[in-house]
């Protein structure tokens, strides 16, 4: 089973990377761009068979390691 964890910054948390990308896109002549925010995806192969169990396991991984829940949200997709 393959899963994708998407980790994004919580609203309101400063995102210097996103801001720099925003500026660079502007400088490259792309217009009409609002805010840019950067996050992470983590693709994980699991050998679980049960989707629900896998989801619970992934949530546990997010809480313990993959996301910094002080400033980040996470989202789990089983692919």
């Amino acid at each position: 089973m393959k899963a994708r964890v998407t980790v994004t910054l919580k609203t309101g948390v400063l995102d210097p990377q996103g801001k720099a990308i925003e500026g660079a896109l502007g400088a490259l002549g792309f217009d009409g761009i609002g805010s840019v925010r950067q996050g992470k995806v983590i693709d994980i192969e699991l050998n679980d068979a049960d989707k629900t169990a896998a989801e619970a396991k992934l949530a546990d991984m997010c809480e313990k390691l993959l996301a910094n829940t002080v400033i980040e949200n996470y989202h789990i997709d089983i692919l």
Partner: protein
Amino acid sequence: MKTAILVFPGTNREHDMAAAVRSVSGKDPMMVWHAETEIPQADLIILPGGFSYGDYLRSGAIAARSPIVADLLEKAKQGVRILGVCNGFQILTETGILPGALMRNAGLTFICKETKLRIERDDTIFTSSYKKGQVMRCPVAHHDGNFFADDDTLKMLEDDGRVLFRYCDAAGQATPEANINGSRNNIAGIMNARGTILGMMPHPENLIEDLHGGLDGRGLFESLLEKVA
């Protein structure tokens, strides 16, 4: 002999580089701001270390799209000598002037320490003051120095003798232990096919006087400044 040092927002080793140029050549380099569209006539263009644009997105990525880069590409084509150190090397790969990419260090942490480099060739404008096979001391200070190129590119670089520096141990062996950042084939520095452009992760400019505890880095500047003079 004229040297131009390119400065991007977030560049922070331009003074170290200028000091090295001054110390070896006795001449002040020109500092060129990234927003310029033309690099003044120079025999040598240097892209120094730092965190251009915070190294956000990818190290060197945003700087590689700066206004000044169009002229850098032009000068590269003309065969002007170019030296990219650390962030400068990252920018050179991001512009496509040099092949490969510099990824996060295998150990994931920033590394600042003295390493040893094996000189792979002494018949280039960059390394003529050294001897082939010589082991030089050289500091590193980077987070993204893990050189990657696909198998074909790597083979081409090796076959064409474009690898100039490799991380090695005291005996000159390019061992896995000596490979501080996980670079493929222990690569620390490569040049272009014409031999006019060098990109390297280590900082020779930080080992050029007694204060630094060694002079091993001087050779690079001596080779270059003499050759382009």
